[in-house]
């Protein structure tokens, strides 16, 4: 894909490559590299060369992991790439990129409130961003597979 060519400089950070329907490239990286990855994106594409469209967290209790996907749209072709990483389920902590890319803020807050992924450095993570009071009181993360809601 043409847009992918521009990300050659990030090659060392990307550990695996696959795809999801319909034909979108999935690039895996290690959780510790998240800030280097996004700084590299800003350097390679410019601050207005891409935007973070969606951040999706999926609970995989069978593998003991939480899968975190950053869906990034590259401009001007508007091509979507998926940056994927896996976090250990008992301690899903990753550094926040909301200071580099402010658009990641809502996605990080939602992943924290609904699944418990902690984004270090994001001062605005709060329980109750979306989840209702009783779930917060019971310390429940609603989208986890073993949640009692």
């Amino acid at each position, binding site marked *: 894909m043409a847009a992918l060519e521009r990300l050659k400089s990030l090659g060392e950070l990307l550990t695996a490559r696959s795809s999801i*329907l319909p034909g979108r490239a999935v690039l895996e990286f290690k959780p510790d590299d998240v800030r280097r990855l996004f700084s590299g994106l800003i350097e390679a594409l410019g601050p207005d060369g891409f935007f973070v469209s969606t951040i999706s967290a999926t609970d995989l209790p069978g593998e003991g992991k939480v899968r975190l996907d950053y869906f990034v749209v590259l401009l001007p072709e508007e091509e979507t790439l998926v940056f994927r990483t896996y976090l250990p389920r008992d301690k899903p902590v990753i550094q926040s990129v909301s200071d580099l890319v402010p658009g*990641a803020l809502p996605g990080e807050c939602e992943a924290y409130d609904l699944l418990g992924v902690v984004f270090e450095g994001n001062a605005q993570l709060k329980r109750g961003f*979306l989840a209702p009071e009783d779930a917060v009181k019971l310390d429940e993360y609603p989208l986890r597979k073993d949640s009692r809601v």
Partner: protein
Amino acid sequence: MGGRKIVEVPVTLEVPVGPQHPALHEPLLLRVYAEGEEIVRVEVNTGYNHRGIEKLCEKNSFHKNVFIIGRVCGICNTVHTDCYVRALEHLLGIEPCRRALFLRVLAMELERIHSHMLANAVLALNVGFENLFMNIMLDRERVMKAKEVLTGSRVMADYIIVGGVRRGLDDDKRDKIAGLLDALAPRLEYYKRVFEEDETVLKRTIDVGKASRLDAVRHSLLGPVARASGVAVDARASERYDAYGELDFNVVVKSEGDVWARAMVRWDEALEAVRIARQVLEKLPSDGNPVPDERKLPRKFPAGEAYTRVEAPRGELTYYVVSDGKGPNPYRVKIRTPSFNNIVNSPFMFVGYSVADLPAILASLDPCISCMERVTVIDVENGARRSMALRELAGGA
């Protein structure tokens, strides 16, 4: 001036705007910190309308979810169902006949027209022009009638299903819809002229709520808000899903980035939507029955993930559906609505403007709070149903 120092102590007044909102008919709390009339900071407080849809989708079958998904948002229900159904069709590897694809486009474009008319009418109401609001709503009724003719209901279309659409379109209905569009188009042009010429509207919307191109991209703003700031993103043009690959349309972009530009982008898009709808009605292919037999839809979905994007009236809407191949229910359904990005990232747009500009700026973002907070939790143990929590989300500038 002698040796006196004058120390100014700014007094910031916290003005809670909402959740019974003056600008919208949906609950959202904006804590506005104002010095006199000027806004210095805004905090967005969400959580009033969280309904638990993502969790609910994991507990219902793929096909039942089509109807649940349609009820995420009233104004954008066809685009939600279209996005979800296309994700399912990717998983299954099926493609509906061209006639069905054209009909889907027709439903979505009709929805775009009425949504933009509503957004601009609400903007007119918020700048004080109530008469304009009433007149736009009157003409909007034509679109609601067209939707009723096409889908069977004015708002909730329930029109799209895996494999096609749920109702056919015969020639009588097609002519009726064409007639309604012909009556509507000159009215849309008239309203566009009102927004271009009327002094009250211009005074209250020009140079208000500006967002630069860089800000719009960095903050992941979407839809008409981004296009009014010069960012040419339109999922219809890039994905070319359904029948958009065969239709001719323009992506409307303006560069001013203020409330007026957003309103004009919406009017231009509404006119483009009328053009697209007319093309659909003219070019409607007859290559098969667009209505699949709902009794024979596949129940077992192979394992896989699909990520689809659609251009909702408010921006890019994305669905991420994961199927584990084991049961009739999806493993994960992630919905990211455009209002989620637009509203939660919006506080930087308010700073520096007066409190009186706040409703105008908020209405120009076209907030759809029910789209934004699609999760409510039903506590199975108590049987109790609660749907709100008030915590702060500081969305500082």
